[in-house]
Structures are given as C-alpha cells and as structure tokens.
C-alpha cells in the first residue's frame, strides 16, 4: 500500500514540485494516526480537499478508538476489529496513504510550510503542509520499583494488550490515580473478578475535571459497589516478588504493603510537544494554536490532545486558553483545522462534551464548568440518576450527568443554541429540563 517510499528521493527545493518519475511530496502529512488525525483526513475529503494525504503513525495497528481500551476491550466485550476507525478500502478510495510503525524524530521545515519529516528508521517523508496530531503520553510515576514487570500504564492498544495478557494470573490489582482512566480500568478489572484498590493522592476523585458533588457521588457509588478507594494516599515504592523481576506489592507512605500482581498507573498525560519544540513552535502545556488551529509559524496545524487552544466555548473570557483531552474535542478541532487548510476560516464553537463509563455508572459531561459560581443538584435516588448543573451569573455553562441522558442532552442542546435553563425550576428533579429551557 505504501506509495510514499521517498527515502531515496532528492528533496525538492521548497515550493517546487518533484520531477516526474520521482515520488511527489504528499500534499498533507499528518503525524499521529489516531482520533484527531483520522478525523482531519476524513473532514478534508468531505470538504473536497483533493491533494494527496499521508496519515502516519508510530503504532503498528490500523488507527483505532482508545476509549474502549479501559472499558469494553479490557472486559472482552468488544473485539479489536470493531475498534478500527475505517476499512483499508476507505483509505485507498480516498487517496489517503496510511503509514504504520514510523516514529518521526525530526522535521526540516521551510517558511512556506513545506518540508521533510525524518523517521527513526531513517525514512523521509516530504510534504507540502504539515499537521501535528501527536496526542499525549502517560505521565510516569518515578518511584522505586517503577520498572518492575507488571507495573503498567494504559494509553494505547499495546498497553491494553499487555494488561489483558496479565489479568488472568492476577488476583490483586492496585490502580494508582483516581481519574477517569484509573476509575474506568478499576471498574472493569473489578467486574472481571479482581480484588482492586484505587489509590488517589488528592483529597477527592477525578481531580478538577468534575465538581465536588460529582466527585463525592462517584466516591460513594464506587465504594458501595465494593471498590476499595483510598484518598489522600500515595504509593512510596513497589516491592518485587522472589524473582526480583515482577511486582508483588505497593508500599504506602505509612509502611502498609498492599499485595498486587498488577499495578496500573493512571496519573494523567503529558502532551507530545517534542516535534513542535524542535520546530521552534510556541509551546505551553501543549502546542499553542490560534482559533484556526494554526501553530505559531502560521502554517502547521496542531489539533487534539497535543494542542493548547483558545477556549472554544461561546462567551468564555477573552484570551482564555485550554487543552482538552477528549474524543469530542479531537473531532471538533480536526474540523476547524480542515476548514483552515482549505482556506475557510471558521471558528471552533462546538460545545465540548465528554463521557466516561464506570461499572453501571454512565457519566456524561456537557460544557466546561470553569468559573462557575452556583450549582444545582438533581438527584433521583430511586432510579440512580444524578446531575449537577453549573451556572455563571445565572447562565447554565455545564452539567455532569450520571445515568441521566435526558439532562445531559437538554443541557448540551441548550448550550449549543445559546439558551438557558433557569436554576430555580431546574432544582426539581422531576421537571424535565427540556420543558424549562428559555431563550436566555
């Protein structure tokens, strides 16, 4: 399938097409073949972009969806094949060259946006335009024993396969980090019959992604389902088994040792900015981009988990920046970049949303709750539904909804249409939010 074999091609002078007979530089080189890179290629084709596209990634898998890795895939309820985004036929029909297993280590770039990317294996990929969709990598926990066999992370398919391969032999699992990935994996592993303990360094679950009330709800709900969650607790070191090679336990700061044949660490991610730095692009908790997804050189686009962008929510404070880690953002941001690359300057004004499935708890978040000054809680104990609506100066800005898709949908739709859901009437959980939505 690879028609791009460009290693031997003389790099054409910037701005010039290659000579007939030599491989042409690709119209757009997308580095990072995952959620945002795939969406960029797909959106460009939908907009009529007719140049050749190379979608390149370092993983040895066809591009796949990550969310299931901590949920259905881990539990074995979906097959790996159904995680694949697009069939090979689709890429061939749409003139997109999919390159797997090439890690880009350096890029030479000209002021006009063209250049050549160099991979670790020595291949060269000449391009006219460049997109960085390089995502983020798992943050490492640097403590004694961190390199023992069985101390694992969960960011990509290989990580998930490594975890799955060990699950069968394990009885006790310690999950470090009470964020989304940690809690999803912990719930999945518990469902698979493991004895799971979650250690959270902070005073509550899910850091700053949700408000206090939602964090509390999850703490109670998970404990009620038998998950051992320890807040304000840090791991001091990992102990080894008799062989000295594999992990056997987690020693806490107070000296307690929890047995663990698997330790899964989920303490956040770090955006991949190495290539951007090498290109001297502005970087600040991600690759800094403008509202058109353009990096500081004005030609490279950067999107998804790796990008730090102006807050896209309508009405947010001017100059406010944000880096989002979600499927929805990867998709919406890719659309902005696709418009930008086809010369249409459209602004990103989608309503960010997010989901996380943990045991029988379906969390859906609409909007961003930054800067809220009021919350309204809707709790239906009997049916296990729970929502928190966030307000700023009387205007609803976000909602966390657990097993309450109607609330989620109502808030998401209201935000998209610039409407409001007045706090007073919203406080009655029996009132459908849709019926009290007002035109601000």
């Amino acid at each position, binding site marked *: 399938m690879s028609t791009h074999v460009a290693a031997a091609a003389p790099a054409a002078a910037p701005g010039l097409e290659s000579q007939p007979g030599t491989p042409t530089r690709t119209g757009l080189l997308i580095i990072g073949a995952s959620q945002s890179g795939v969406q960029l290629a*797909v959106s460009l084709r*939908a907009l009529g972009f007719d140049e050749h596209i190379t979608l390149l990634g370092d993983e040895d898998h066809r591009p796949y*969806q990550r*969310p*299931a890795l901590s*949920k*259905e895939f881990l539990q074995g309820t*979906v097959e790996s094949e*159904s*995680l*694949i*985004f*697009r*069939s090979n*036929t*689709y890429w061939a*029909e*749409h003139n997109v060259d999919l390159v797997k297993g090439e890690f880009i280590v350096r890029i030479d770039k000209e002021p006009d946006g063209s250049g050549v990317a160099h991979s670790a294996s020595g291949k060269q990929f000449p391009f006219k335009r460049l997109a960085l969709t390089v995502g983020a990598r798992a943050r490492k926990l640097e403590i004694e024993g961190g390199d023992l066999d069985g101390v694992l992370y969960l960011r990509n398919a290989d990580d998930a396969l490594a975890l799955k391969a060990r699950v069968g032999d394990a009885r006790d699992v310690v999950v470090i980090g009470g964020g989304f990935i940690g809690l999803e994996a912990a719930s999945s592993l518990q469902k698979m019959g493991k004895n799971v303990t979650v250690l959270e360094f902070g005073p509550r679950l899910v850091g700053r992604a949700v408000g206090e009330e939602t964090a509390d709800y999850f703490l109670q709900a998970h404990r009620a389902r038998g998950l051992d969650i320890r807040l304000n607790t840090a791991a001091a070191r990992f102990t080894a088994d008799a062989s000295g090679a594999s992990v056997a336990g987690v020693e806490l700061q107070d000296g307690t040792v929890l047995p663990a044949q698997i330790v899964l660490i989920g303490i956040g991610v770090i955006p991949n900015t190495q290539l951007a730095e090498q290109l001297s692009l502005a970087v600040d908790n991600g690759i800094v981009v403008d509202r058109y997804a353009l990096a500081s050189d004005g030609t490279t686009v950067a999107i998804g988990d790796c990008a730090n962008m102006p807050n896209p929510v309508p009405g947010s404070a001017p100059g406010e920046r944000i880096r989002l880690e979600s*499927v*929805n953002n990867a*998709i919406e941001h890719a659309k902005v970049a696709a418009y930008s690359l086809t010369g249409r300057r459209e602004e990103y004004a*989608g309503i960010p*949303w997010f*989901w996380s*499935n943990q045991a029988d708890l*379906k969390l*859906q978040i609409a909007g961003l709750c930054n800067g809220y000054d009021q919350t309204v809680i809707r709790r239906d104990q009997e049916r296990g539904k729970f929502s928190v609506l966030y307000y700023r100066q009387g205007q609803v800005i976000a909602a966390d909804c657990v097993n309450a*898709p*109607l609330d*989620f*949908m*109502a808030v*998401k*739709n209201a935000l998209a249409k610039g409407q409001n859901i007045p706090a007073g009437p919203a406080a009655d959980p029996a009132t459908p939010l*849709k019926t009290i939505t007002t035109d601000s």
Partner: protein
Amino acid sequence: MPTVHFTDAEGAVRDVQGNPGDSVMETAVRNGVPGIIAECGGSLSCATCHVFVREDCLSQLPPMEDMEDEMLYGTAVDREENSRLSCQLRLTDELDLFVTTPETQV
C-alpha cells in the same frame, strides 16, 4: 453477508455489506457512510448514530433499552416512531436492513 441499505436525507441510496455481529453503526462508519458520526464509538453516550428504520424492518430488531430510549430524545433531528440508535442494532445473517440517515447528527 447481511446488507444494510442506507438512504441519505436527499434520497441517495448506498448498500453496504457487513459482518454478522457488527452493529449498523460500525458498518456505516468503517465504510465512510456520511450521515453517521458515532462520536462515542457505540457506547450509547452520544446519540450521533441516529437512523430511521424502514417500518417493515422494525419488528426484526431487538427492543430498545431505556438508555437508548432516553438518548433518542436528544438527537439533532427529532426522533420519530421508527428512530433507533444504529450502534445498538446488530447485523445477523437473516437481516437485510433499510435505514435512512437524518439530515444532520449535530
């Protein structure tokens, strides 16, 4: 092989062959059928895989669960009697399914 016949909002038809066990959504997305977004990849969280099922096919489908029912109230194009979320519909060897995709999913 089971076939899903997708009709878009303008009336254009596209027939896609799928594998038994796959969902209608997966079959659409993998082949790039426009009109199905499926942001959540089938985990019943996004309602962007909404389809209208041809009346005579409805009875062959599994009944919907409460969650699907509730999610359908939030679709971009309003739900109808024959609305389903295509990630919840699995292909079987016997199934030849006719669905229409809505004008928009967002």
